[in-house]
């Protein structure tokens, strides 16, 4: 073996170790944001915690497949959503969402009716509690909810959401639109409740 090759090996290993440490630190800094998204993709805190741990464990093992300079938060979420989908979501087939007649103004119109018109409909928190919102979101079928969670809670762009979920951007847009309507229909039911 050539002398130079043997000498350069430890140096390369040291550089790789440094890159790995940098990767791990950057990934850990994003953990709070990753968790917030994960929490709403699944229905319980325990599930979210398991999922995040599993995703980080996988990310740390496959750190070399991350391309430095690209969106690491999207990369982590892609691992996480894939794990989530693999974890038996295929077993529990989602029923097709019912046909949706309501338009985008539906919830507003409903709240206006409920307040007898005139009153300040814009004060949403008077009418809907935090639990109402969380409950309504969790009632949205998975495929639609994933997109709402990524875009509206995770602040991902349509393009990032498309990449994370491995679906065309047009599908992101249509699911988002439909999903928000479903969410509003769920919320409208809660407005009607005492």
């Amino acid at each position, binding site marked *: 073996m050539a002398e130079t090759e043997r000498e350069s090996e430890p140096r390369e290993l040291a550089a790789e170790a440094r890159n790995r440490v940098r990767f791990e630190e950057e990934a850990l800094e994003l953990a709070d944001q990753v968790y*917030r998204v994960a929490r709403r993709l699944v229905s319980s805190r325990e599930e979210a915690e398991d999922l995040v741990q599993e995703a980080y464990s996988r990310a*740390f093992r496959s750190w070399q497949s991350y391309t430095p300079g690209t969106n690491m938060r999207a990369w982590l979420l892609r691992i996480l959503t894939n794990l989530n989908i693999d974890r038996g979501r295929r077993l529990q087939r989602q029923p097709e969402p019912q046909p949706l007649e309501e*338009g*985008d103004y539906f919830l507003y119109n409903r709240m206006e009716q409920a307040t007898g018109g005139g009153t300040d409909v814009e004060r949403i928190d008077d009418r809907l509690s935090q639990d109402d919102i*969380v409950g309504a979101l969790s009632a949205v079928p998975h495929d639609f909810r994933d997109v709402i969670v990524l875009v509206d*809670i995770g602040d991902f762009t349509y393009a990032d959401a498309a990449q994370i979920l491995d679906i065309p951007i047009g599908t992101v847009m249509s699911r988002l639109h439909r999903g928000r309507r479903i969410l509003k229909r769920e919320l409208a039911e809660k407005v009607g409740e005492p």
Partner: protein
Amino acid sequence: MGGFGECSCDHCEEVMQPYLDRELTPEEHAEAEAHLAGCAYCGKRYRFEAELRVYVKTACREEMSPELKAKLVALRLPEA
């Protein structure tokens, strides 16, 4: 035709999502703004939608526990 003429609130409802997601072309956006400025009916509904999104985001926010954070740190690969 299909634009924001007078009494085109159906169209306005259609473009609410792309408007709030900033996915309209600059021309479409300007057209929507012009309509909203003169239409209280749509203006109220757009404001409501924008506030609803903020409220959903706030209401759904749940922070990770310090225990989980510690577990993630422990998952780091051992030093080579």
